[in-house]
């Protein structure tokens, strides 16, 4: 497994693409939060965390689009699947390597809570839970993007399908769409959205239903990706 993760991380950082995507993510996220911080005059990181899903919506599909699509296009998938590794290990290695890149990307935003902590008082446990939620959200975006990457040879298609699906899932949990839905199905749709569950973490709440949601979401898409690899048609 370590060998596979090392190879996957090499794919991100042997080419400039991985660096560019990660650094752009950090620059944009930091900028969009900092530009309003003195206007809002609030020492909370909630606006930052609420901004994150919309950046992760682009960042994670851009990172994951290559995972299987490129292996299929160049046929290196044949090399990978004829090595003595199970499909589960192959998928988990790709998933965990994206997890490590997410951790690196999120750690590039740690200057924000650190600066705020020096300037004023912020409630650190809330910040910690916010980062935990952001990591869980990032992981669920990764598992869905991995699944779409396993469906095609085309990276661009993989990126588009992932981004569009994640966009709809995000707006399911926002006020925008819920106001158009009949009240009786509103709650059901909202509960399907990762944004809704993420909001609990932003408030500093670790809700076990939300933990269960993220766990199930990842399990479902990792399982579907493994099934796709096992098809061998």
């Amino acid at each position: 497994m370590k060998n596979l993760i090392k190879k996957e991380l090499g794919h991100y950082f042997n080419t400039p693409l991985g660096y560019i995507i990660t650094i752009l993510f950090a620059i944009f996220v930091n900028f969009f939060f900092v530009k309003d911080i003195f206007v809002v005059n609030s020492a909370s990181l909630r606006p930052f965390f609420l901004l994150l899903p919309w950046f992760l919506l682009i960042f994670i599909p851009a990172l994951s689009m290559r995972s299987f699509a490129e292996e299929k296009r160049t046929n290196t998938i044949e090399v990978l699947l004829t090595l003595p590794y199970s499909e589960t290990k192959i998928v988990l290695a790709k998933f965990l390597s994206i997890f490590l890149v997410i951790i690196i990307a999120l750690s590039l935003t740690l200057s924000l809570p650190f600066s705020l902590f020096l300037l004023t008082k912020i409630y650190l446990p809330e910040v910690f839970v916010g980062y935990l939620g952001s990591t869980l959200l990032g992981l669920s975006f990764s598992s869905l993007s991995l699944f779409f990457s396993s469906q095609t040879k085309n990276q661009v298609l993989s990126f588009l399908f992932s981004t569009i699906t994640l966009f709809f899932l995000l707006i399911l949990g926002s006020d925008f769409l819920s106001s158009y839905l009949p009240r009786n199905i509103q709650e059901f749709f909202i509960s399907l959205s990762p944004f809704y569950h993420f909001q609990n973490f932003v408030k500093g709440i670790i809700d076990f239903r939300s933990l269960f949601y993220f766990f199930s979401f990842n399990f479902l898409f990792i399982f579907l990706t493994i099934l796709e690899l096992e098809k061998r048609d």
Partner: protein
Amino acid sequence: MIILSSVSKIFGEKKALDKISFKIKEGEIVGFLGPNGAGKTTTMRLILGYLKPTDGKISVGGLDPIEQRVEVLKKIGYLPENNPLYGEMKVVEYLNFIASAKNEKNWQKIAQTVGLSEVLNKKIEELSYGFKKRVGLTTSLLGNPNFLILDEPTSGLDPLEQEKIRDLIKKLGQKKTIIFSTHILSEAEKVANRLIIINKGKIIYDGKKPKEKGGVEKLFKSKIKN
């Protein structure tokens, strides 16, 4: 031993293999011949468990390539058709990766034997076709596999390099079971000790290699015409 019993493979509506059966014993070097699209690569991929058969049974060293895929792959070295490689990796990184997967500690020695020492620190995408082929061949030898499956191992190489690879296959064949596909009939004549000819998904010849010079070509042409 590799055993295929009544194996069929259907892609969509196309029958790629139609109830093929054969047994390959330890120490045999089998030349797998047939025109393009005959089913050679499909057969090789089925033996590896890379594809699932639509019907029939396959056994590799007593194991099922689908149910015991990982165990089977520990026993097989494979050079795929078109030799796909991770171009952005350096040769040394790639060989390290495959060697780790196959639990091979002595990969430097194998790389040296195949003639890769001078390009170990180069990126794979910068290598010539011949060197890329050598990288693919080296990876197929890692992990001391009992079975070698080589899909057109000499295609695209110059005559000198072809000769070197043939000699290597012959040498390896003293200890391992080898199946190799080729379009070069003289190659099969020089290297193989048994021939399997496949056409339109059916085995049309399975037997010893003709002893006379040019015999393989005559045999191939007569079988394909029929």
